[in-house]
């Protein structure tokens, strides 16, 4: 059982970069759906980290965790988009700047 010549931390740094991108997406974008996509991006970055560690630690727990994250992501997408659709139906907008009734 040899090793591939790719050092592990490449994957980890890639995951960190993707995670950062996701965070930026959430902060800058005004559209709720795109914000949600950026969050999905963050979750994927985490999945990558899990798989990387699972390989490094040589135990299956990482993969199982990835499955669980996928389940959660799917559930979140369902509820999240339902909320976004409900808001759109009521307010005809998905731009987060307009949804600002509750403040101070």
């Amino acid at each position: 059982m040899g090793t591939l010549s790719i050092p592990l931390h490449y994957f980890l740094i890639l995951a960190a970069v993707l995670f950062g991108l996701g965070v930026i997406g959430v902060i800058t974008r005004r559209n709720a759906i795109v914000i949600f996509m950026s969050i999905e991006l963050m979750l994927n970055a985490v999945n990558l980290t899990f798989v990387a560690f699972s390989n490094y630690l040589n135990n299956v727990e990482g993969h199982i965790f990835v499955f669980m994250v996928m389940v959660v992501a799917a559930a979140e997408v369902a509820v999240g988009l339902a909320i976004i659709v409900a808001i759109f139906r009521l307010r005809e907008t998905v731009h987060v700047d307009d949804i600002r009734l509750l403040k101070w």
Partner: protein
Amino acid sequence: MVNINIGNADFLAILPMIVLSFTGIYLLVQGVMAPRMKKSVLSYLGIVGILFSIISNFYLLTIVTEGGQAFFYGMIYLDKLTIILNFIFLVTAALCLLLVNSYSTQEDIEFIEFTPLVIFATVGMMLMGSSYSLMSLFLGLETMSIALYALAGFRKFNRRSLEAALKYFLLGAFATGFLLYGIALLYGAAGSTSLEAIANFLSQNSNPGMMATFGIALMIIGFAFKVALVPFHMWTPDVYQGAPMPVTAFMAVGAKAAGFAAILRVIIGAAGAAEPIWSDLLWWLTVITMTGGNLIALVQSDIKRMLAYSSIAHAGYIMIGIVAANDVTVSAVLFYLIVYMFMNIGAFAVAGIVSGKNERFVDIKHYAGLGKAQPLLALVMTVCMFSLAGFPPTGGFMGKLYIFKAAYQSGFQTLVIIGALNSLLSVYYYIRVVVAMYFQEAAEEQESGSILPEVGLVLLIALIGIFYMGIFPGNTLTWLYY
């Protein structure tokens, strides 16, 4: 053929959760299959389910071993802490369900799906309370959150409720991202996500390396969001104000208790050995939370927003107990959570009734003259307010006293003094409600909601709870001591 050693003991351990899940599913089916049945019956069935779960919880009390035992390959841990946490979550859910009917008649919306969601959220909380691995913790957390996202937006034709749901959802998911990243890093460092493995890893090497530190830090941030400590509390006021009243009550008490359950399990339980890492961080978070929460609450005129900031401040007081991190911490935090439950449920119940249709009367000046209009409501609200402020005969005082005592024992005097000064600061905005009720005359005539017997029961339970914990804290304390 791999033999899966999951025996009866395992299923016994999670009996309350099983009972509750079946109730939830039964309610779904019932809701659909019998359209003609009066919808309010659903919440009563829900409560019956919860009662069964409580009974099974008491049964667990008899079979629990002293130190506690892991089940389901280290996914679930059953000890007295789990049972007490289950007890808190179940009672909270029951009390909120009692409030639902009066609220639904007020708003005349069909609340069919409300009860199952609450039931499933409670299952999530119980899972968090009894989790022995980060995976089950994460799943419990998410079950609860997903249910609460939906519940927050339950009045789906009301702009505020949906906005609250959206904000809660986006920020919740965002925070979950951080939590997960923390879990991943800790998994990488400790080699497994089970709390036992993490505890061994942290106790062996005192300096666990930057990755594990980052892991713990990010997890604290995840929990901080859930428990609404100050830099991560921004969602609480908006969501509490937007969400329907029973949901706000459920979130303020249930979600927060679940958050603290997670902290107790992970930070105090597993990462106890790595105290130097997180002790200073939590110290600072506590101070900022208390001061920030109380400070902004001073100027709030909307009762729900004020109670939101007050819940943030109380999160700060509980955190004092956590920061103390000695043998008394767990019983102090649990005692405070129980009193916190009674105080807030009482306050939100009264707020629910006074707020009237479509939650119009939620400003404090709408409470003027309540003392004359509805003396019983005013009395309960006053007791809740005095308890939240920490006046002696009430439970709130005993809770704070016990937390302060715990903090003292591990030498955090400055924290206690800041806590004392903060509770002094909080007296002002709590008393303002009492002043409005008794000393000011009602401006314009607002039709006061009628009190259904169920809500009366909730008020009574809250009142008894506060005074019982206040005057005879002894026996609850001994019961908590393990």
